[in-house]
């Protein structure tokens, strides 16, 4: 099983069910941390957000339910994957949980194999999210090295403008734009405009304009549209 530093955070108000889950997951080689209530978990989790792992959450708990905890984490911007454990007949709740981004929704009593499969899926999602964050963070850091002028050129390039259009938009010479453009490409570690657009979209730059992601060449949008429609 998993020998990584991943931790399974278990939140269940029932002491016996909680202890049994901990034993089973530890016997399978997982690292666990168990909590008796959502608030107990939230308190501890404030210091643990960077630690890799996933959440195993009982749906029906007094005070704060599993769904409420999911919402609280979502509001706090925490994207840690959640596997819900619940009794049967919670279809509407399971729909809400899945819409809220839950990885899986298991019915108690849950078989070990089913549980491990769900946990592995959640840990894989967590790892992917974390590496995506590292990539995004890298892009943000590269953008921070750009001068304000280079950032303007980046914005123009990402929206599909060619040098001549950029020069006109920024009121400068085409030759100067070429210089800025090559600096932007170098500082962003982008080998092509396509790559630059991908990097920029990772951090939401111009993400509102979706056709530009399809415009693989730095062509003016007006020239692209007839061929697409």
């Amino acid at each position, binding site marked *: 099983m998993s020998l990584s530093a991943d931790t399974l955070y278990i939140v269940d108000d*029932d*002491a*016996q*069910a909680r*202890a*049994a*889950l901990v*034993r*089973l997951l*530890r*016997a*399978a080689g997982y690292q666990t941390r168990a909590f008796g209530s959502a608030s107990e978990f939230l308190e501890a989790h404030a210091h643990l957000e960077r630690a890799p792992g996933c959440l195993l959450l009982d749906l*029906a708990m007094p005070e704060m339910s599993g769904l409420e905890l999911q919402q609280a984490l979502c509001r706090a911007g925490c994207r840690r994957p959640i596997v819900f*454990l619940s*009794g*049967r*007949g919670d279809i509407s709740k399971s729909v809400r949980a899945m819409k809220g981004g839950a990885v899986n929704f298991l019915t*108690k*009593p*849950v*078989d*070990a194999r089913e*549980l491990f499969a769900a946990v592995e899926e959640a840990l894989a999602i967590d790892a992917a999210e974390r590496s995506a964050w590292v990539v995004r963070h890298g892009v943000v850091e590269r953008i921070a090295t750009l001068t304000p002028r280079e950032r303007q050129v980046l914005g123009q390039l990402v929206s599909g403008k060619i040098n001549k259009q950029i020069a006109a938009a920024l009121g400068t010479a085409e030759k100067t734009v070429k210089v800025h453009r090559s600096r932007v490409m170098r500082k962003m570690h982008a080998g092509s405009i396509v790559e630059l657009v991908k990097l920029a979209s990772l951090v939401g730059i111009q993400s509102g304009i979706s056709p530009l992601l399809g415009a693989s060449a730095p062509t003016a949008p007006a020239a692209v549209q007839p061929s697409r429609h």
Partner: protein
Amino acid sequence: MTTLETLAHELRQPLSAILSNAQAAQRLLAAGGRAAGEVREILEDIVACDKRAAALLRHLEEALRASTRAGEQPESSLLRRAQGEQV
């Protein structure tokens, strides 16, 4: 949730714990080594969980009997008793 749904949930907790405990013990025994201490604890919990589930069912039977005698709804007294069984 209705009372019966709550009861069903209450019954699932010990059943879930029994299954996870038993499967944990199977893994510990399969791995060999010094698992005896933990397996003993697991077996104690399985026994306790089984008794808890059995008590829930006993309350259900009593409530059903009482309700057929008096023509009443057994649900509220049933729920009180069931939740009293929680650890």
